[in-house]
């Protein structure tokens, strides 16, 4: 297996006992750090390439904030390596960013995934196409209770692509078109990003309980993009929501 001689996992750099029962998975290294700033104490830090992990506690609940960089392939590395060091049934909630495909889901709002459209290929060897990429019922239910009554949190399908430009219908070359974007909009898909379907499939395969929450940094209908200030504020509210949901689950609510 991919355990190094010091018993720490090959890429993610953490070992047994160094991962909490609740993992907040981000793409952005900086966002993982921001999550860890909410901890009452930080007991473990590991850093290797885009994988940065912080393990600590909030009110006695042990959490890990971990970044994986961009893309489903990195998400796979994190999940496979967590398999050996995280407890069975570990809750993994993605706290990411994405682009909105619906006019009503505005820049600065939050998207919670009720399922994911598998446009990536990383998860295919585990589960053939046709297998549904879905969040865990308990995690989704906790997120739903936390978002109750809020009009800035949207629930819907998330399309997961394995690229940022061509794979998400951005016409950065004459050979490209926006047909995938149009197709996702026609299906009523809420947001476009690069990790969720791989997370859902692998989490289910390995016996983890996953959820996915993404800030909306852009709106592909109106072509708006978040300013740095709006993006930072969105990140804060995403982290608030994820941590609130995690604490609710930890407290048995």
């Amino acid at each position, binding site marked *: 297996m991919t355990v190094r001689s010091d018993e720490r996992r090959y890429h993610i750099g953490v070992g047994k006992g160094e991962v909490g029962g609740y993992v907040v998975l981000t793409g952005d290294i900086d966002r993982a750090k921001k999550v860890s700033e909410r901890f009452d104490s930080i007991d473990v830090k590991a850093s290797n390439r885009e994988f940065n992990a912080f393990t600590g506690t909030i009110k006695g609940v042990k959490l890990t904030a971990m970044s994986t960089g961009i893309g489903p392939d990195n998400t796979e590395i994190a999940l496979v390596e967590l398999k050996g060091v995280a407890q069975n049934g570990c809750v993994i909630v993605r706290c990411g960013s994405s682009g909105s495909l619906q006019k009503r889901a505005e820049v600065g709002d939050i998207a919670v995934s009720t399922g994911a459209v*598998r446009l990536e290929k990383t998860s295919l060897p585990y589960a053939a196409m046709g297998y549904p990429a879905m969040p865990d019922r308990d995690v989704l239910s906790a997120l739903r209770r936390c978002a109750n009554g809020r009009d800035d949190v949207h629930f819907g399908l998330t399309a997961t692509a394995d690229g940022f430009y061509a794979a998400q219908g951005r016409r950065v070359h004459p050979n490209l078109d926006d047909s995938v974007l149009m197709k996702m909009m026609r299906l009523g898909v809420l947001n476009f990003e690069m990790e969720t379907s791989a997370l859902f499939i692998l989490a289910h395969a390995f016996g983890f309980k996953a959820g996915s929450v993404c800030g909306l940094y852009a709106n592909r209908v109106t072509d708006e993009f978040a300013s740095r200030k709006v993006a930072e504020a969105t990140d804060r509210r995403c982290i608030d929501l994820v941590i609130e949901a995690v604490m609710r689950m930890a407290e048995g609510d």
Partner: protein
Amino acid sequence: MDQKKRVYHINAKRVTENVILCGRRSRAFGIIKRVKGRVLSDEDYVLGIGKNEGKEVAVCSHGIGGPSIAIVVRELAELGARRFVRVGSSGALHPSVNVGDVVIATGAVRDDGSEYIAPIELPAIASPGLVDALVEMSKGVALPKGSKLHVGLVHSKYDFFSELPELTLDEQATRKGWERLRNLRVLCSEMECGVLFVSCIVLSQRMKAHIEAGALLVPVGRVEEEPYTSNADLRKKAEGAMDAAIGVALDALTK
């Protein structure tokens, strides 16, 4: 738009928002009787409307397989249906599932030809709210002795006889396929949930409505062994489980 022109196989002018679906015509007649309903249409499909807990509920048979249930769901949605619960039989797949258990489907693996309805990458998911209601209502219902309740993924297939790998073109590949599904904790296999769930996602979008779907399945045999058990006691257990499942479905739709 004249709605009549979009409904070709069901002879009714309207249905209730809540619909319980089942494959067999005989089961539909039985449920219509149970809800003291009257039969509205008896052509390709049996449709009736009755009451449970003082609230109207429609009952409709959907035949076997994806293409058939796709017709029923679309036409009933045109007639006003907004919440569907399928109750049906299935083959036990995961070792934790036995004949006569009850499985509440959270989603379905699409091995069913439903890519003709929506891209295959789209997840066939049951409506979380309806799944929660089914789980909640199942707590108050007595299952037959030894019958267990499961909540999880099911498998929807195109080819009924793939349950008997020796009848397929490539027996080893078919067996390998079942093994892979077991490794992903897929509980049982049937033929309609994938199309039901995907249709409701597509119809919600096309009709700008909130159309929900859920399903309760009772294994009546075991995949790779026998599609319908030959054991009389197990058959009785499965019948009891089906009665209980129908009760859960009716309560989740009307309570």
